[in-house]
């Protein structure tokens, strides 16, 4: 049933051009949310995005939820003494006046127990939970397995 509902979400959005939408929640601006396609649902997917805090109070991303995965978590890739590991991140700090990125080689959403394969060209929703600002849902673009960054006209700006 869960899978059926999720397929419905995917098919609704499958043909849409990438929104690369910008979502605002109070002082927070969230943009460039993207993921990589997966082969099947047996391996975890990933979530990247950028958060800008235009306010004067610090906030933090403390959790994520999505119908695309049974067990989404925040992780941080750490390369220390030439060894990479990716421990669970309790929170991703979003300091006042700064932009933080969940990006390859750093913080990322780890989408474990995928409901279905993530297919290139599709999108899925992710709800972000902030310590202070509350919750907001963003649309995530699924890019190629080879993607190394968001695929928007304004990417990287």
């Amino acid at each position, binding site marked *: 049933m869960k899978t059926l509902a999720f397929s419905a979400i995917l098919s609704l959005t499958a043909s849409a051009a990438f929104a690369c939408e910008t979502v605002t929640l109070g002082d927070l601006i969230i943009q460039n949310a993207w993921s990589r396609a997966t082969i099947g649902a047996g*391996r975890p997917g990933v979530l990247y995005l950028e958060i800008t805090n235009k306010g004067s109070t610090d906030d933090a991303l403390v959790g994520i939820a999505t119908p695309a995965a049974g067990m989404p978590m925040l992780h941080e890739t750490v390369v220390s003494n030439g*060894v990479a590991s990716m421990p669970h991140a309790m929170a991703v700090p979003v300091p006042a006046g700064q932009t933080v990125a969940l990006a390859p080689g750093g913080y990322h959403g780890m989408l*474990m127990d995928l409901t279905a394969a993530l297919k290139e060209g599709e999108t899925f929703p992710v709800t972000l939970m902030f310590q202070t600002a509350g919750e907001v849902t963003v649309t995530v673009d699924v890019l190629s397995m080879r993607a190394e960054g968001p695929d928007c006209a304004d990417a990287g700006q």
Partner: protein
Amino acid sequence: MRLTGMQKALWAAAGIAVLAYATLLRDAGPSPGFVAGAPFHPTFSLPDETGRLLSPSDFGGKHLLVFFGFTNCPDVCPTTLAEVAQVMDDLGPDAGKVQPLFISIDPERDRRLGLADFTAAFHPAIIGLAGDAAQTRAAADSFRIHFARENDATAPDGYTISHSPALYLIGPEGDWLRQFTYGTPASEILADLRSRL
């Protein structure tokens, strides 16, 4: 503030010392800890997905671009494989002189999930190798790289793997040439390869 000649000399010396120390830190990468000048021929004997056992000498004098990883690694591993794929595309006619290899440090699970499909999704030239535990450990030891299985109740199947995320370049004679640290842009890897091919 005006500096005397002596002060200038001291500052210059301090600057040189800091630079030298920074160079030392940068070059003292933890892996592989080989001695400059000493020949280093890292090796492996691992099966591809069809069961064919492969060693460095089986690649007909190509340069080998070697990466150790696992397919349940959605962040670091795809990033490096995407770089390798870009390099292979950009090499054009010289691509035939370079063999990219993905050595699984999670061989049992990777064989079960399908290693060839995974590497082909990045680039058809990449060969995935997945041996047994002993063959895998022997390859990692030979390359002097680290990997360790870490129990993690929140991870898929209850474990994850920490590993050296660099890319290693082996010459046509099986000689170690250099490593590219994690995050080296494809353009830099390409330029280095072009200078050697």
